């Protein structure tokens, strides 16, 4: 029974390689193996998963952020916003990509749901970067990696699930991930800047002689194009920070704000609005169908003894503390290839946190390492949700090859962050000790 779970992957990967849509490949794998495990009761399990995913309130943030992105894009506000960024950063190597990372940080601070940050910023930033002839792999890497900040910059839904499982305070985790998240974002910024310094064609600058715009002109463009959208984005973030709204509600305020903004610029028409609504449907249906099928497949994987398998592996290995940590993080990385985040957390954290703690490590620190690890896995081809989401919003001239090449350096940067957190646990542990509590 135990090995059965392993046989799921040859089937899944064959279907995927053939080009069967990701969601249907997972659905097929879930059904074939689910039949073996649950027999006819399988259908009830699948039905429950439909209800489970369809009744998940926090997923509303994905829909709302996608709508915000589509609306700003259709109304031309996205382009104008990034053009305004370009006005100021045109002389800086990779300026637009850097602006994109900053935008990702801002959106990451307003939502904690996987995929939301990536889709909204991708919709906003890709067309403009393409127009200015940015290197396509760089565009892809920036969007995928920047988008993945959504779960490591608070708030974060994953961490809320993780806390009680690991028997640590959600607050410690939310505050503890601030520095690792910022370190990671800092690496992105430094990398993009250096890359475009060394290879100017990756993020082209406008030559000095062509940059004839006066400061007054720049300010005028900024006031018109940059200030109103930024004001809206700050409102979203502010409503969250000031305690007016829950994270999901802040996303709704942003969605409403994008419609008002389009009206403010006089670009709100039936065609624009309906276009944004229909495009939102396409993107969210694509993302959530993968989530649904993934959750079905995970349920079967667990029912087929996948958990026992992981546990036996660790039990048999008989490793020292660091070896154990490496094995657990390695398993996490692999699990991130085919299981959904929440399930990975649900399975791995209760299973391994006690062992890790018994080996003398800090639970909060381990949770953050774990988080960085699934984030890296989330970015790593071939099964990379980050790339699936990008595929769903990117124009066809960006190929999967561009995406695969583009994420590689950023995977390296995430591993670097992981190592820094490994070597300096204080990056995680210092801030919560200062910020939380009433003493």
């Amino acid at each position, binding site marked *: 029974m135990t090995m059965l779970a392993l046989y799921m992957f040859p089937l899944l990967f064959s*279907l*995927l*390689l*053939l*080009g*069967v*849509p*990701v*969601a*249907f490949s997972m*659905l*097929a794998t879930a*059904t074939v193996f689910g039949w073996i495990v649950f027999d006819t009761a399988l*259908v009830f399990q*699948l*039905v429950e998963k*439909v*209800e489970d*995913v*369809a*009744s*998940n*309130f926090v*997923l*509303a943030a994905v*829909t*709302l952020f996608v*709508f915000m992105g589509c609306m700003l894009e259709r109304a031309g506000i996205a382009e104008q916003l990034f053009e305004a960024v370009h006005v100021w950063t045109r002389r800086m190597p990779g300026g637009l990509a850097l602006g994109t990372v900053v935008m990702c940080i801002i959106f990451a601070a307003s939502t904690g749901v996987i995929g939301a940050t990536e889709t909204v910023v991708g919709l906003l930033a890709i067309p403009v970067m393409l127009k200015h002839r940015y290197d396509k792999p760089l565009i892809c890497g920036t969007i995928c990696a920047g988008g993945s900040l959504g779960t490591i910059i608070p708030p974060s839904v994953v961490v809320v699930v993780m806390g009680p499982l690991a028997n640590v305070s959600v607050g410690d985790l939310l505050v503890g991930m601030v520095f690792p998240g910022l370190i990671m974002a800092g690496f992105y910024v430094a990398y993009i800047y250096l890359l475009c310094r060394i290879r100017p064609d990756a993020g082209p600058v406008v030559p000095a002689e062509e940059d004839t715009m006066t400061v007054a002109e720049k300010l005028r463009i900024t006031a018109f194009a940059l200030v109103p959208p930024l004001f809206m984005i700050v409102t979203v973030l502010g409503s969250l920070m000031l305690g*007016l*709204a829950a994270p*999901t*509600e802040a*996303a*709704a*305020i942003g*969605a*409403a704000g994008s419609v008002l903004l389009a009206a403010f610029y006089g670009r709100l028409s039936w065609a624009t609005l309906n276009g944004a*609504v*229909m495009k939102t*449907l*396409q*993107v*969210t*249906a*694509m*993302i*959530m*169908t*993968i989530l649904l099928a993934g959750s079905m497949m995970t349920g079967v994987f667990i029912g087929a003894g996948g958990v026992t398998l992981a546990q036996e592996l660790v039990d048999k290995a008989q490793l020292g503390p660091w070896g154990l940590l490496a094995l657990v993080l390695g398993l996490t990385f692999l699990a991130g290839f085919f299981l959904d985040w929440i399930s990975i957390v649900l399975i791995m954290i209760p299973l391994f946190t006690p062992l890790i703690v018994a080996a003398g490590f800090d639970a909060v620190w381990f949770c953050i390492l774990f988080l960085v690890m699934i984030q890296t896995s989330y970015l790593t081809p*071939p*099964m990379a949700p980050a790339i699936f989401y990008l*595929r*769903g*919003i*990117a*124009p*066809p001239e960006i*190929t*999967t*090859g561009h995406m695969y090449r583009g994420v590689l350096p950023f995977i390296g940067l995430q591993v670097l962050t992981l190592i820094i957190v490994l070597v300096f646990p204080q990056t995680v542990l210092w801030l919560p000790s200062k910020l939380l509590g009433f003493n």
Partner: protein
Amino acid sequence: MQSFVRFVDRLTGCVGFVGAWLVAPLILSACYEVFSRYILGSPTIWAYETGYMFTGANFLLGMAFAMRENAHIRVDVLYLRFSPRTKAIVNALSYALIVVPIGSWLAFALYKHGLSAYLTRETSGQSAWNPVVWPFRLSFFVAFAMLVLQALSELAKCLLLLRQTEPEERAHGVLPSAAGRQGSH
């Protein structure tokens, strides 16, 4: 076959349109909840439940539409190198062997799931509003029934294409959307 394809594609468009516009009440209800809680000091009893219902029904009703628009993404490393004929074969098989049978099975089970909720007047038990759950569950059934219909329509398109483009003349064929494009555009 042609008229079946046209009919289903249009029906999917209508269902998708309705599902897509659920995003409007989703936005409005969440914004109203913030207003009501913060300004009026009295949270609504319904915003949480309408929130997940609109979100769930939105994406479920969009599944068939996304299929029509070829928006369900794939790992296209090999797929892009396939000939249009091979693509059509892969697609025809995935509709015929995966989506249609599993989808029908699920649609039937979801129908019974919804019906039992209707007969027992089951309520959600998730908030003080505590609404009956059958209307929400009806959207599960409609979504999967539409997915199956759309898969049949796509299957028909693939078969038409395979009949049109015999192997020797495939280079000249004019291809319907089902077999051709990658990605979502």
